[in-house]
């Protein structure tokens, strides 16, 4: 076991990641692994099929039962491949009897239904441990990995089922409608041919899944060992030790070389001893060499579907095509030109881009419609006909919580106000006066106030109208109202007196 030749990145993974790594191993060593499982298993399955030619399901079940044996060959290959040793199929087949022999009965009897089979198998096949030793070793390895190992088995069982039913279903899809066969009929059919087809598909499903299953289990096992034995550290430490020792040797040899140079050719060029100083000519050569090396000549081939550039085509070819079509295509092209694809070599990206575009367009239409609908609902956007009516909209009935309807105002405002004032009900007095003023402004002077206006804004609107007397009056009453309403300061009596005196004058004045 030469760790420095390890073929997977030695780092600590969680169990799920190592299962994925196992799948990668199965993929990259696929053909050997597959053949090493398939050849013996196919021989057994064929013989069994011939023996039980009437009951193919028996052949399938027995082959399935023997899986713990078949799984060992891929494991053997992987254990060599992991450290970059090449194994041929022939060598593997020769080793089969030895591999199958270890613990054959436990694996075919009570361990056959072990849910962590592929994870435990390396202990039998690679470490060839038995009995108590094996149990102790398993306890060490199983910590926090037996869960994922179990799930691996469950998922792989399901994958076999999915492949079996999927392939059967796929053929069903291809049959013309005239042939009336039900999938369930084929599965439970007792006819020989149907059984043979169904059984063989099941066998192929097993053969396809087996390399992945064994490799995932193997990767789980390797991951445990990397963690327990710190392979990653060992590799780095060995590397560090190697480089250090090499440096020591190198520096001592440089010293030796220098010494000899000093002794032999004292008067001559002392540069000769060290290879770090080069003449400009030598450097030139070296630079040229580096520049011509592979690092500066990377070639990348990109394949994929792109829209053709129409503008580069001959103009004659475009005759007969309407202009609008050309501009439409150019427009689409410009859109796609701007799009960034994550992965240029996937031809499916164009389809995705079109789909994405369509979905975005749909979304945009929906959003615009919703915005329009909402605005219309709240009257922000209003059809033109209604805009004219807006001027005739009824005046507000309530401003800042004050009732400003015309008929809520007493006839003799000034008298009422002074009456309230003299009774000490200052707040009500000023309130009534202010309310009456607002009502007067709305109904008599036809000012347009809205719900959103504040007292100060109302006063401002009056001021803008240019009626100096009126705006002075409104300014005064507004100030007093704000004082008592918000600051709870009772206004000076003379102010109120003045306002009441002026009320008559204002309320009958010209607009």
């Amino acid at each position, binding site marked *: 076991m030469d760790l420095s030749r*390890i*073929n*997977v990145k030695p*780092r600590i*993974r*969680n169990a*799920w*990641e190592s*299962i*994925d*790594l196992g*799948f*990668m*191993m199965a*993929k*990259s060593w696929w053909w050997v692994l597959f053949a090493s499982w398939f050849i013996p298993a196919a021989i057994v399955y064929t013989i069994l099929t011939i023996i039980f030619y009437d009951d193919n399901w028996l052949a399938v079940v027995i082959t399935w039962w023997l899986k713990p044996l078949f799984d060992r060959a891929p494991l053997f290959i992987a254990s060599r491949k992991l450290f*970059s040793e090449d194994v041929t199929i022939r060598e593997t087949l020769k080793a089969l009897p030895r591999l199958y022999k270890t613990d054959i009965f436990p694996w075919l009897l009570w361990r056959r239904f072990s849910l962590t089979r592929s994870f435990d198998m390396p202990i039998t096949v690679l470490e060839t441990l038995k009995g108590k030793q094996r149990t102790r070793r398993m306890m060490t390895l199983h910590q926090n990995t037996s869960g994922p190992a179990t*799930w*691996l088995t469950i*998922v*792989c069982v*399901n*994958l076999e089922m*999915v*492949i079996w*039913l*999927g392939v059967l*279903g*796929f053929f069903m*899809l291809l049959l013309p409608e005239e042939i009336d066969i039900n999938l369930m009929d084929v599965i439970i059919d007792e006819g020989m041919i149907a059984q043979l087809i169904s059984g063989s598909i099941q066998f192929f499903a097993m053969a396809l899944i087996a390399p*992945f299953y064994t490799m*995932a289990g193997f990767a789980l096992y390797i991951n445990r060992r990397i*963690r*327990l*034995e*710190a392979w*990653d*550290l*060992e590799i*780095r*430490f*060995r*590397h*560090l*030790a190697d480089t*250090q*020792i090499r440096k020591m040797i190198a520096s001592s040899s440089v010293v030796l070389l220098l010494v000899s140079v000093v002794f032999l050719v004292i008067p001559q060029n002392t540069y000769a001893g060290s290879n770090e100083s080069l003449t400009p000519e030598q450097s030139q050569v070296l630079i040229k060499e580096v520049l011509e090396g592979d690092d500066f000549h990377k070639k990348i081939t990109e394949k994929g579907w792109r829209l053709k550039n129409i503008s580069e085509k001959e103009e004659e070819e475009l005759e007969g095509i309407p202009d609008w079509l050309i501009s439409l295509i150019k427009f689409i092209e410009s859109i796609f030109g701007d799009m960034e*694809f*994550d*992965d240029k070599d*996937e031809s*499916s*990206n164009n*389809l*995705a881009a079109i*789909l*994405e575009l369509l*979905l*975005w367009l749909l*979304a945009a239409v929906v959003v615009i419609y919703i915005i329009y609908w909402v605005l219309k609902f709240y009257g922000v956007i209003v059809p033109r006909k209604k805009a004219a009516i807006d001027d005739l909209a009824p005046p507000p009935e309530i401003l800042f919580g004050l009732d400003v309807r015309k008929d809520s105002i007493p006839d003799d405002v000034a008298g009422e106000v002074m009456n309230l004032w003299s009774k000490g009900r200052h707040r009500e007095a000023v309130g009534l006066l202010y309310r009456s003023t607002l009502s007067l402004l709305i109904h008599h002077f036809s000012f347009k106030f809205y719900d959103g206006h504040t007292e100060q804004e109302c006063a401002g609107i009056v001021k803008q109208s240019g009626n100096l007397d009126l705006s002075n009056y409104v300014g005064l009453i507004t100030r007093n109202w704000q004082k008592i309403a918000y600051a709870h300061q009772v206004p000076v009596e003379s102010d109120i007196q003045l306002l009441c005196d002026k009320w008559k004058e204002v309320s009958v004045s010209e607009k």
Partner: protein
Amino acid sequence: MDQLDTAYLVETPEGIDLQAQLAGPVVRAIAYSIDVLIRSVVMLVVWVVLIFAGNVGIGIILLLSFLLEWFYPVLFEVYNNGQTIGKKYMGLTVVNGDLTPINWGASLTRNLLRFADFLPFSYLGGLLSMTLTKKFQRLGDLAVGSLVIYKPEVRKQAVLPECLPRPPSIPLTLEDQIAIIGFTERHNDLSYDRQKELAHILSDVTELDAEKNIQYLRGVGSWLLGVR
């Protein structure tokens, strides 16, 4: 030497290498099963409640099952950091090809294309595609270039052994520093004998015997981690 690994690297325009661990078919199948289970339970509850509401109830059931089937993954992926409940449980997350969070368009497309992955039976297409592509992508992922990766775990600060922090006596490469820090941090996980073996490898460099070497390497590891 090209070592097998499930890592996926992205270089940002600033020249920073981002690394993610791709998630394969097994863990994704389990995450998916969890989601199916959750959806089924929700639908069962809805069914029990609404089945008494007559035709209207059945209509609502159908509508809800449609929405749940198609938008459960999309909404979770967009609003929950690319994680449905099943993915969260398994520690997975969906990202764009450049490792940015998944957006509406990509999530919608990859989930709408589930019907392609489903063919011909029970996601056989998706499983095949996941197994055969380099980055474990199903067809929906291929269409938008999205990936399913392991969400990086927040690493807890390891308990460091008691030792005298010491600066390294020779210049160390980054990998060597990481290895020595690993040696220090994993002092509880590795058996003492194994630690002796590992330390022995470096005894030519440090010129110490194995026992002292363990202490020395732990000291260097602590020093590298900033203990003074």
